[in-house]
């Protein structure tokens, strides 16, 4: 942890963001990660500062076969620990992504991890259809040929307007 909630308040932040990974080789690491997320949740409750948790299945233990279940586990763990918003990578299809949305019952944002820039808009549209509340985009925007145009297109999809 490199920052405490009160530091974030001093910086004028509107929310805290933390990772929650599942699939660590060592269960100790997963436990510590969850402990950190829980501690941030408790502290952010005291400050009235929303906590966004990015839930990512990652590492050698994650396979195609268990990815979806692990993503559902991670997002639900974050929700139960006290996340106000969760984010998780798009699974590639709307049906499986909807399962994650339904199991979290908390605003869920799509992450653009490992999605080709060319397919990003399509993925955003699908995840919104699956019930996502929006997106957290990084590389998909700043590595696009025209980042501003890409962002405007995403914005239009998410807010269904302008």
């Amino acid at each position, binding site marked *: 942890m490199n920052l405490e909630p009160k530091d974030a308040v001093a910086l004028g932040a509107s929310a805290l963001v933390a990772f929650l990974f599942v699939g660590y080789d060592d269960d100790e690491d997963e*436990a510590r990660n969850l402990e950190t997320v829980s501690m941030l949740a408790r502290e952010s409750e005291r400050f009235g500062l929303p906590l966004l948790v990015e839930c990512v299945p990652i590492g050698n233990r994650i396979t195609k076969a268990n990815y979806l279940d692990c993503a559902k586990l991670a997002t639900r763990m974050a929700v139960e620990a*006290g996340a106000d918003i969760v984010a998780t990578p798009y699974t590639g299809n709307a049906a499986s992504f909807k399962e994650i949305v339904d199991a979290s019952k908390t605003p869920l944002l799509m992450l653009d991890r490992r999605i080709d820039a060319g397919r990003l808009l399509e993925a955003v549209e699908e995840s919104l259809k699956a019930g996502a509340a929006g997106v957290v985009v990084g590389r998909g925007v700043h590595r696009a040929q025209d980042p501003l145009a890409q962002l405007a297109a995403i914005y239009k999809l998410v807010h269904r307007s302008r």
Partner: protein
Amino acid sequence: MSSPGKTLRLSKIIDPDDERAVVVAADHGFMLGPIRGVVDLEKTLRRVVDGRPDAVLLSPGQAAQLNHLFRRKDSPALLVRADWTNAFRDKTYTLPARKIKRVAVANARDAIAMGASGIVTYFFLGQSDEEAEARDFELMSFFARECRELGLPLIVEALPMGERVTGANFADLDAAGMRIAAETGADVLKVLYTGDIDSFERAVRAAGIPVLVLGGAKAKTLRDSLEVAEEALDAGAVGVVYGRQVVQAEDPGEFVRAVRAVVHEGKSAAQVAGGIAKGPVRLRVFAGNCTNCRLCEAICTFSHDGFFSPSRARLRVDVVSVDRFIPYPCTLCGHCVKSCPVGALIFNPDLGYVELIEEKCNGCKECVSACPFRIVGFDEEKGKPFICDMCRGSPKCAEWCQPDALKAVPYIRGRA
């Protein structure tokens, strides 16, 4: 010893009118992800709350999000899970635990801010890593101190857990965990049933604080769950904590009402769930008193068959060591009744013992192999089994047992 704060908050969990409690655990999503019944937790909880349990256990995140379900004056008390573990992710789970881990996720102060009437934490006994066990203990004592300061009840879920737990040491580990938690400062225990009434009664007495029994995954039907509750109360527990059975029930509210009828209204499982009636007596074993005289076996065959033949006895005595003997009488478990493919075995509707309808019996011996205690014998000449009938209400084995290793006691629940 107990602080006013603890006393007051405890009275929201364990009903002071009858000192009994029905608690529903709904923190599964935290440990296992969205399993059946808790995917839409709010929807399930609305129905659970409708059944009026005394308390509901939630993770910190859900406690905050679903706060609105607890805002009535007569709402269930809220209990907050203060720790997390991967211990329930077994080999069949999508991401199995490689070693047992447990961390704190909220402290007593946080739980009070959420409006909780108590916190629940684990205490595992039986891990091969003793360092982990020591850390587990340390975490429990940290919670105990904080709860003492703040006047918040601490409910410890003491479980035999880990590589060193075996069938043989389970009951002892269960009892040890209960006592250790009580000595550390737990106010209430949430534990697994040891499996038999005598060892559980001893463990409850040794713990000296109120004990709630976990339903466990074994109970498959409503009736099974109610029987667990019935037996646990009989052994001195003050109530139950049911999780999956409730949240995965077709109607969670109805389920809670049925459990309440047994726990708070003193009804029997049979009265509430219907089905077979058992009793009016059952045989209680006090193995420590048994001298291996075998008079029970002798009188059993004499009264049923007119001659002495221990091999035909409807109970047996196991010799465990030179000075330890265990009588195994019929427990009215009903496995033989369930196993009979032609319906020749029934519980006598008036007297509740097992009865063989000879005309229906085809001699298939299913009941012989179904009996977990190996006390259903088979008469090769007649081609029919012989089964304990509790001597139609006054068992001779207990009557003739001089050292009181067997006693006939009322089956209907009532503290011994």
